[in-house]
Structure formats: structure tokens, C-alpha cells
């Protein structure tokens, strides 16, 4: 391994070790939450809804829940990990090392990305065991989930770097991220909404992410897939560029 590879591997390993050491909170809690959603919305309420646009409700709702768990875990992990390290100033150990801005950004990004991957993989395995959730378009599904994970991991980095206190992180997670995800159509189809909410939903970027993931899982077609995917890639690249600029200038991290 080259020195650069060792540095990047160490940065990623540190982030993974952090969430693994507190796995009851970082893995167990989110998994329980996802299973509760599946139970309440899928099994309990779903038994009354029967089907939605031709799909069993529980089959319809699981793709959104899997995307949601990846997104929230990627975001929460990175924002809180960076803020904790800023508080304890232990981030200085990394900032004063030869690691480049890109290496630091990759390390911080992949920690949350991998936590999201782990939680949503277990959630999918459980939902497959329960209801045989299908995968209709793997070539759309896996790239979409990966880009969604990277997008929210980058968003977590952006907020963690800017945040001054834990309240700042909670502000974005509670008042921006969660409403966008819930109103993006995790639990319902936007076609069921009355106007103007149906139109307003089209301004929610998460709506297109859920559209991609749901199409990948069950083939449900609500959004233009190539355009949604292209915009998602562009948005993720823009966030990466923003974060890279922050790490390069040292704003919020170095004085």
C-alpha cells in the first residue's frame, strides 16, 4: 500500500470504528426504527390499504424505507462525527497530518456511507425474508442507492463542518431532512395527493430519489428515470465540490 492509501484507509477505518463502538445507538436504533415503520405502515396499516397503484402496500413502502435509512444514517453519522471531533479538537490530529483535502473528505464521507449501507442492507435482508421484496431493475437500483448514500454522506459532512453545536445538526436533521424525506413519498404515491401538494412534491429533490429507488426495487414508474438519475449525480457532484472547497480553504476547520 502507498502512503496515500494507508492514510485514506486509516481515515475510513477510524470513522467505521467510531460507529461500531457505539453500535447499539448507530446500528441497533436505526434498525429498530426501520422495522417499526415496516410493522406499522406495512403490516398494520398496509393490511387495510391492500394495494397502491397495483402493488401491495408493504412492497410499495419498503424501497422508500430502505432509502430513508441509508440517507438518515449517512447524514447523521458524518454530521455528528465531525462535530464531535471538532469539539474535542481531535480532528487536529488529522488536519496536521499530510492527508490532502480530498483524502480527508473521502474518509469523512465514507464513514456515514458505510453505516447507511450496513443498516439498509440488514433492513433489506429482513424485508426480503418477510415479504420477498423484489429487485426489478438492479442496474438502476444499485447505482441510485449508492449515489443517494453519497449525497447524504456529503450533506452530513457539509453540516458537520459548519455546525458550532449539536443543536445545529439537529436543526437540519429534524426540520429539513426528515420533512423532505417524509413528504417525498416514502409512505405514499404522490399521485394520491390533492393539488397543490401534488405539484409541490415535484420541487422536493427526495421525491426523485425515492422514485429512482422504488423503480429499481419494484419497477414502479413515477419520475423520469434518466433525468432523475442525471440530476442526482449532478447534485452529489456539486456537494462534493462544495465540501472539497471547504476542506481546501480550511474554512470552519482551520483558523
Amino acid at each position: 500500500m502507498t502512503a496515500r492509501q494507508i492514510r485514506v484507509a486509516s481515515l475510513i477505518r477510524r470513522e467505521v470504528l467510531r460507529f461500531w463502538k457505539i453500535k447499539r445507538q448507530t446500528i441497533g436504533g436505526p434498525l429498530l426504527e426501520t422495522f417499526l415503520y415496516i410493522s406499522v405502515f406495512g403490516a398494520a396499516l398496509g393490511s387495510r390499504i391492500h394495494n397502491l397503484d397495483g402493488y401491495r402496500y408493504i412492497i410499495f413502502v419498503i424501497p422508500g424505507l430502505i432509502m430513508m435509512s441509508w440517507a438518515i444514517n449517512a447524514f447523521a453519522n458524518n454530521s455528528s462525527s465531525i462535530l464531535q471531533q471538532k469539539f474535542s479538537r481531535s480532528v487536529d490530529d488529522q488536519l496536521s497530518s499530510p492527508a490532502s483535502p480530498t483524502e480527508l473528505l473521502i474518509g469523512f464521507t465514507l464513514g456515514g456511507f458505510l453505516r447507511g449501507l450496513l443498516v439498509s442492507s440488514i433492513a433489506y435482508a429482513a424485508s426480503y425474508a418477510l415479504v420477498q421484496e423484489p429487485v426489478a431493475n438492479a442496474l438502476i437500483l444499485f447505482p441510485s442507492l449508492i449515489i443517494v448514500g453519497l449525497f447524504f454522506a456529503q450533506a452530513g459532512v457539509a453540516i458537520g463542518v459548519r455546525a458550532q453545536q449539536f443543536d445545529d445538526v439537529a436543526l437540519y436533521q429534524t426540520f429539513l431532512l426528515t420533512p423532505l424525506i417524509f413528504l417525498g413519498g416514502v409512505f405514499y404515491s404522490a399521485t394520491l395527493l390533492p393539488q397543490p401538494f401534488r405539484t409541490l412534491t415535484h420541487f422536493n429533490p427526495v421525491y426523485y430519489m425515492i422514485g429512482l429507488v422504488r423503480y429499481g426495487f419494484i419497477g414502479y414508474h413515477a419520475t423520469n428515470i434518466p433525468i432523475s438519475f442525471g440530476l442526482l449525480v449532478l447534485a452529489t457532484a456539486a456537494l462534493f465540490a462544495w465540501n472539497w472547497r471547504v476542506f481546501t480553504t480550511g474554512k470552519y476547520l482551520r483558523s
Partner: protein
Amino acid sequence: MTPALKVTDVVKRYSTGVEALKQISLEIPDGAFFGLLGPNGAGKSTLIHCTTGLATPTSGQIEIFGNDAVNHYQQARADVGLAPQEINIDFFLTVEESLDFHGGYFGMPKKDRRDRIKELLEAFSLTDKRDERTRTLSGGMKRRLMLARALMHRPRMVILDEPTAGVDIELRLELWQYIQRVNSEGTTILLTTHYLEEAEQLCDRIAFINHGEIVAEGTTEELTSHYGVGTLEDAYLELVGRQELTRSV
């Protein structure tokens, strides 16, 4: 011979408008044990932060063993180990993991890290604590760990920002001994401290910094003669102003 640290006309102005370093210049020879003394807020930590990449100088140049420490920093940072003033240990990690990750951030291969960790844990009497979470360590143990961490990647220059602040006499002497040994093996040391006897005993050259400027530099003898006093403590008191001190009592 290339100096270990060469600071040329460095200015650091914070966004608040405060000018912490005012066109400062300083040269530390390779292998020196160099002391940087000055009152709180004089600019010591800012200079250290600019040298190690934790702060970006507004203007000027910093070179570490001839390598640019600001724009092409990779080799420069690899040559420096920092034990900062404030405890900044990663509280999620154990003692051993702290050293291992630090070595990783500096690109050390696994086997090299393992050997070096063993060596440092023994040298700093931390072997028994290797699996303990860092948050459970006593203040003195944390200081030892920070020093061990600064030395982990075998830097050519070690910056110690008040390394003995708040530690008991026994540990202070132990740390002095270790730092002296490291210096005698060829590592350059830059030490900031408020303990004047520490600087007097350890450092072969000392610089006084005040209000962001280097106001005097030399051996203890040169500094005492510069201020026309008998001891380093008197020279320091001349620097910070006896009258100010008297007023504050």
C-alpha cells in the same frame, strides 16, 4: 545546513481583525532544543498552528527542513510532530488505537506502526493502559499519550506546546528526560512553556515573543545580557513589564 524551521515575514490576521503575528521571522537550526517564551496571547500557539497547518498564515513563508509548510505541505507535515497545549485525544479510541491511527494518518505501514507502538508504550509506561479508552486516563497519562503520539511517526522536529502544564513534578521530570533523549538522538525540539526553569534547563536557544513579534532571541546568557539582568526570569519579567505585574498583584 538547512534549518529545521524557517519562518519568514509571517503575518496572521484573523477574520476578527486581530493581528496575532506581525511579520514574524524566526530560524531554528536542525537538532536544536529551542524555547519559545511569551505571555498568554503573545502569538506562540498561532505560530505553531501556522507551522502545522492548523491555521493558514495571511502572508509570509514557512519552511520545514526546506519544504514549504503552507502550499506544498505533505513532506513538511510528515517531518513534524505536534503535542498541543490542549488535550485533543480522540475519546472513542483506546491508547493503542490512538497511536495506530496517528501512524496511519502519516502513512506508516502496519508492521512499522505495530513496532513503534510497542516501543512508545514501553517508553512512556503506557503498556498496561494500551486497551483502555483514552477518556478514562488521568491527566498525566493523557499528557504522556499526547507526547507519544507526537513522536509516533518519527518526526524530525517535535513541537511541544506547554507539554508539562498541569502535570506533577515526577512526571515533569520524566517527560524532560525523555524529550532530552529524543533531542540527543537528533530530533529538533520547539518548546513553549511558562516554566522558565524548564526552558533554562532544556533549551540551548530561546526566543521571546510578545504582541505577535519576536522581541529577543539567543542563549540564556545572551538574553540576560540583552535585558541587563541576572536571570532568565528577570529577562522575562522585563519583557512582560514589571509594572504591569506589580499592578496585577
